[in-house]
């Protein structure tokens, strides 16, 4: 995992210190601003791969800060952290120019996975690939065909989208809620292990008769598709 520069704008010093430490532990560089104005200045100077912004900040609230940054053409991906977890708050946050939204309290693994996913989106000009490849697994986004080792694997539409999302984030952890959001467009908590069952079905189709396994479970975090040989 390549090192990222992450800006944390959060007024709760304890929470911020925890995040800085946690991001450093996984090899990222994290800076911290305790109020909106300082955060705005830091973010404008640029150079950050991702900014994590709390919604309620002194001096300048999170949404205004994001709006101001976007108005200045600062396109650093922004993840909004908020104690307000309701649907319309999420919509407001994303409309203000945020790229993702995570309600407090959250698991760090969830935040890390989302930050990773955001950073990956970075090269905006690059045209989207139409074929994803991992080892001998191929997914053609145009013809909706999936093959492994040249053998076509029939997938249900939802399974296809699941695999597509995983392969889009190949080498990164993808959490259950991320999958639920992007594949089913629901933001609620499914409570039971519904996503796990979908994954195990997908795994049965793409991994069971092949070697090496590509779809991995990351304990306490989620799933990752990667070339196990490397």
């Amino acid at each position: 995992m390549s090192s990222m520069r992450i800006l944390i704008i959060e007024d709760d010093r304890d929470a911020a210190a925890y995040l800085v430490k946690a991001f450093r532990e996984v090899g990222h560089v994290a800076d911290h601003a305790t109020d909106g104005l300082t955060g705005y200045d830091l973010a404008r100077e640029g150079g950050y791969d991702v900014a994590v912004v709390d919604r309620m900040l002194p001096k300048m609230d999170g949404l205004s800060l994001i709006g101001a940054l976007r108005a200045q053409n600062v396109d650093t991906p922004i993840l909004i952290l908020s104690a307000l977890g309701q649907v319309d708050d999420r919509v407001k946050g994303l409309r203000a120019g945020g790229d993702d939204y995570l309600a407090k309290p959250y698991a760090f693994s969830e935040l890390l996975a989302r930050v990773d996913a955001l950073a990956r989106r970075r090269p905006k000009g690059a045209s989207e690939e139409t074929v994803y490849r991992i080892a001998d697994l191929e997914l053609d986004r145009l013809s909706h065909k999936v093959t492994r080792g040249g053998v076509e694997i029939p997938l249900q539409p939802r399974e296809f989208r699941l695999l597509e999302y995983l392969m889009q984030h190949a080498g990164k952890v993808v959490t259950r809620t991320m999958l639920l959001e992007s594949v089913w467009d629901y933001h609620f908590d499914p409570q039971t292990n519904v996503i796990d069952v979908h994954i195990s079905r997908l795994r049965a189709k793409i991994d069971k008769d092949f070697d090496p396994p590509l779809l991995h479970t990351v304990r306490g975090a989620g799933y990752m598709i990667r070339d196990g040989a490397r």
Partner: protein
Amino acid sequence: MTALGKIFRTTAFKLALAFLALSAAGAGLVLSIVGMEVFTLVDEESKQTIAAEADGLAEQYAQGGIRRLGYVIEQRTREPGSSIYLLTNYAGETLAGNIERLPPGVLDKPGFIETPYETADDSTLDRRALARIFVLPGGFRLLVGHDLRDRARIAHVMVRALEISLVCLAALGALGALFVARRVLRRIDAMSNASRAIMAGDLTERLPVSGSGDELDRLAENLNDMLARIGELMVGLREVSDNIAHDLRTPLTRLRNHAEAALRLEGDARAYRAALERTIEESDGLIRVFNALLMIARAESGADRSALSDFDVGEAAHGVVELYEPAAEEAGAKLKADIEPGLIVRGNRELLGQSIANLLDNALKYGAPAPILALAPPTAPSEEARPAAPTTEVELVVRRAGEMVEIVVADHGPGIDPADRARVFERFVRLEGARSRPGSGLGLSLAAAVAHLHGGAVRLEDNQPGLRVVISLPARPAALGEPLEKAPAANAAALS
């Protein structure tokens, strides 16, 4: 503030004052018009009298010249009456008449004139008369007039009438104002006293309603309805906080116990790890309950009502079914969906999706048939063989029912006893037999709150056997299939 001072400040008093001023002005106007009319009439009569007298005198003059005229005038002045006469020669000297003095120049004025005059026996009183001057040959002038005492008397009467009526009106107006002000004031005082009591914390208190059905009553009734609603919300809030306090205490205690137990562990890193993991698991459970409670509270308060949008219920339900289908199969259950497409509802897709998910989750958890009928073939391709377990069948139906859209989740489990059906919608209520399984007891509460938010309802029915949960929501007109044939205005009113 004194009671009187309060009355002076009331709207009723001000209204009464305005009414008084208006009616006084009206009375004044009427009386002046009547007075003017009477004046004109009196003047007219005087003029006619003057003309008749002048005619008679002209006759006498024609018969006997100026001498006879003087003689007749002398005679007439001795008769009682209000006629006045004056005959002068070319030098202005009085020849006959009952006028002692006139303002200078009066005798040169033509036509009818109004003039003050003095008589011989009364030179102090400023008398007025209507008169006409006739010029006779040889420089003689004759004044024939009529005293205006009658007119003055009438004017006096009029003014008196105005004064008396003003006094009467003022008295009546004041009384009326006092009455209205006191009546209205007393009721408003009662209302503000009641509202003060309510503000002080007694939410069961209600504003007094007199029963007359007037605007004050309507206001009081509306305020009372508002109070009732606030009371309901308060009771709900109190229940929620009581329940939260009660139900979060158990997992919080467990959480604390795990942490304490971990602290007592000696050295084993793996055990520490396991303890910490359990701690996180417990706190995740707490967060989940907390989120569910918040979601219910938000749905019940209608706070999200502004963020509603039109969406296809079938599509939303289908997504949830697809989400749960593999898990259901894994658990040895069959999930059947019968979804009518194109049913549109105005609402919150997310909350509705969560409600459907909760119902499916419940049905999968508790909807297994009683194990007596263990004869059904084990069709589920489950990894762990479940030889005797019958297949759980859960059915999700989305259909139109009149102007409503119904979302039905049905199972063939033991169902819910009719006596318990109302209770299960309450927060944290979990029936016997469910307590041992994971869950918070909030799923149906959320479904009910969400249905309420959408202007619908949730009901529980017997699926014979099993439970059938029906969420019915008002359909958007487009979902009724014939949006043009139905009166759109009526629909919009009924559904908005």
